[in-house]
């Protein structure tokens, strides 16, 4: 393709995007999603023109000329039946396959994605990086690196929606769902809650700040230094309260104010925090971390292990299963253990759940097995 043709295609695309009022395309999937959108809208317009053109022609050509007019009996033949079914069916199936192909891609995070835990609660979004930093209202990610979000909710169902990325995923209480995106250009992008969640549903905003990889690394280093110095300076200092700042305020687009609130209340990385939570919440009374069996299954090498359930089925202990086991311990019980574990829904902060999962993930056995996933939805990811 010559540059001239390329820019022409680009102009047509841009024209479509503007005519359809679509937001900017800031993720790797956005363009593909929009292309199908343009095709469908064009087809719809053509189909509508044909249908109404025909109807208008009939209206004029066959208008009533006298009150006692009789008409000939006309009935459809097999050819018409085949046409009436075949034309829309083949068109729709093409859309379906193209769309489903993109959908599978949107549902399957690449294996090299970095993880961020996302918690929705009435009415704010909280983001926690496994390396430690967490913030309300602002998610910082590097450009050009896939980011997997592990979402959950602390109360009712929320939905994490970034129009510029063309992604949306419900955040459910008591379960983890996931989605992913890769930002293509630095900037800040609006996050909205798309599942009705009560009084301030329309104010449950946040923003994604896409930084260049260098800026992101610098920011992360700074956070780590802050976290480490805090841990070293006052290991037993009381944890600071989370500021209850409305999400919308936190996500304001004022360039003078730093975006969002980064919290230093939690010390260390998520995994370190998980270790503390496990001790404080009494997890270790029943679960060991050295491989010996106790009241509950050992955590050593648990992540990614194939567990046999009381129902005879097997399950891969991934983030979703570990979370479910804390929230709904009786739902899928590992064989050989009694259903004695209490539910921690409402007991554990969602960030604490994330911390525990991250902690369990660090407790790998000597040999790292390749994890086989059960489906595209909850594919566990090995490295970070």
């Amino acid at each position: 393709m010559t540059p001239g043709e390329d820019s022409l295609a680009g102009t047509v695309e841009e024209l479509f995007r503007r005519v359809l009022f679509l937001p900017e395309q800031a993720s790797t999937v956005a363009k593909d999603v929009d292309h199908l959108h343009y095709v469908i809208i064009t087809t719809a317009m053509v189909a509508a023109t044909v249908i109404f053109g025909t109807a208008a022609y009939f209206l004029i050509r066959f208008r009533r000329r006298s009150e006692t007019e009789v008409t000939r009996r006309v009935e459809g033949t097999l050819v018409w039946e085949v046409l009436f079914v075949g034309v829309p069916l083949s068109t729709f199936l093409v859309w379906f396959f193209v769309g489903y192909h993109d959908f599978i891609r949107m549902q399957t995070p690449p294996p090299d994605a970095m993880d961020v835990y996302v918690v929705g609660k009435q009415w704010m979004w909280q983001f926690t990086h496994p390396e430690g930093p967490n913030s309300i209202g602002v998610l910082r990610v590097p450009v050009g690196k896939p980011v997997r979000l592990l979402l959950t909710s602390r109360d009712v169902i929320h939905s994490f929606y970034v129009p510029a990325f063309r992604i949306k995923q419900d955040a459910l209480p008591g379960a983890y769902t996931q989605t992913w995106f890769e930002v293509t250009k630095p900037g800040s992008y609006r996050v909205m809650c798309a599942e009705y969640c009560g009084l301030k549903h329309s104010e449950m905003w946040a923003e994604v700040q896409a930084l260049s990889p260098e800026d992101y690394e610098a920011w992360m280093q700074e956070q780590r230094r802050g976290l480490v110095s805090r841990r070293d300076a006052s290991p037993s200092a009381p944890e600071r309260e989370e500021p209850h700042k409305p999400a919308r305020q936190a996500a304001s687009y004022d360039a003078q104010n730093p975006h969002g609130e980064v919290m230093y209340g939690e010390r260390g990385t998520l995994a370190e925090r998980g270790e503390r939570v496990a001790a404080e919440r009494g997890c270790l009374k029943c679960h060991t971390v050295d491989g010996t069996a106790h009241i509950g299954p050992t955590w050593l090498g648990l992540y990614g292990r194939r567990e046999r359930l009381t129902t005879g089925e097997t399950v891969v202990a991934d983030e979703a299963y570990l979370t479910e086991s804390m929230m709904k311990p009786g739902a899928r019980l590992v064989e050989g253990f009694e259903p004695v574990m209490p539910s921690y829904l409402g007991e554990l902060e969602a960030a604490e759940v994330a911390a525990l999962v991250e902690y369990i993930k660090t407790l790998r056995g000597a040999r790292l097995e390749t994890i086989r996933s059960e489906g595209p939805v909850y594919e566990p990811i090995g490295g970070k």
Partner: protein
Amino acid sequence: MNPSAGSSQPAITYLNHETTVGSWLLTRDHKRIGVMFLVLVILALLLGGVFAMVLRIELLTPGPTIISAMTYNRMFTLHGVTMVWLFMIPAIPSAFGNFVLPIMLGAKDVAFPRLNLASVYIYVAGAGLTLFGMLWSGADTGWTFYTPYSTTSPTAVAPILLGVFIIGFSTIITGLNFITTVHTLRAPGMHWSRIPLFVWALYGTSVIQVVATPVLGMVLLLVFFERVFGVGLFDPARGGDPVLFQHMFWFYSHPAVYIMVLPAMGVITEVVCAFSRKNIFGYKMIAASTFGIAFVGFFSWGHHMFVSGQSTFGSGVFGVLSMLVAIFTAIKIFNWVATMYGGSIDLRVPLLYVLGFIFLLVFGGMTGVAVATTSLDVHWHDTYFIVAHFHYIMVGAVLMAFLAALHYWWPKMFGRVYPERWSFLAASTIIFGFIVTFLPQFLLGNLGMPRRYYQYPAELQWLNVLSTAGASLLAFGFTLIGVYLLWSLRYGRVSTANPWGSSGYEWYSGSPPAPHNFTEAPRFEREVHDYTVPEAPRVY
């Protein structure tokens, strides 16, 4: 008009043979029950319309305008509940279906007249309880009652749930009645292949009503128990699953869309034939596609949950099944247009509504296929695009068909003709107003404005203002219709027995019909909508 029509109008009609209030309230006459339902659903439409106008006025500015966030949340819930359960589901079957279905089949009444009367009072009881809930504190859950929000909301969700639960029985009874009537009360000569397509549409609807409505009843009761007794079915802390509710709710509520749309399609078929003076192009295709929609409609509920964490494969299956519904709809659209070929078309107001219907159905249907396309739905899910889509296909279709039926059967029901010019003005206003109201909402959805938003980003304001302007056109159109129809009841020109020269079977009776529909046994010797001879059918 047609020379033979109008000669044998019955002197005693269902309207004048008894005129006491008691004779209306305790009637078992399907026609009077139809008229009572008509009054009730129009009141519901009025109420739902007022809620809608409040919503649209609130959305004129990005911030708070006239009501608080809490009131707004209640308002869209009440708008949805009223429009869906009090208006759209009973609108065409219970009002027009009750009136014309037995006449079309040559029957004196429906199979269970007492049950039919009961369905009115069950509806009134359910609607009353729902209204009580609204006035008491009003639910703020959205008409979908998603858990766990609906199980924890502090508002009066329980009476509204119970009210909707009760209304469900009214729907089920009407469905049972129609199915039984079609099977047992057809007049001699009414073969299966002759049954008017409006009746087939009602039959398909009735099957959905009977099969799906109990599931709604169950799930509403479960939410009620969860709220009142705390059984924990949808509460993850007690091993429940909030998404289970969505599966059960949409298992009813998706087919419910076809409870609303199928009768509308039936009306359109009748009106296209009558005003094109033509038999339908593909009788079997339309009848079969009705049952195709009724069947496939049961297996597409998961397309409401593409982003709920449902399996990717499941989403794909639900997506492709949803597209089949669009195929059946496309078959109908092509057939309606093809019916006009070779006809003798008189563009009267009912036909104008049919054109509006087809317009909304084409765009509503195409956007329906678009949102069934999994990758695109991720962006559109729970945005104004969805709001616009279902208002086009569901609300637009039902409203257009409701108004087409109201005008087409107005002389049949009340023996008076509505004023032609005013009705043209109103119809054009409503069709134009509808498009202006909801077209900007497609664009708002593209821009990413989620639904049920009290406040929205300031750059979206002008589209919202445009939408509100369209809504006020709608309000004006409906007011106009209300005024001239009420006027015509008393001052309208007296109608002949068959003012349209239609050869639909319901015109074999007088306008208005005799108390038992026919003064002598009707003989259905001609095909339905047969216009190959100049005479209009005889009035029995």
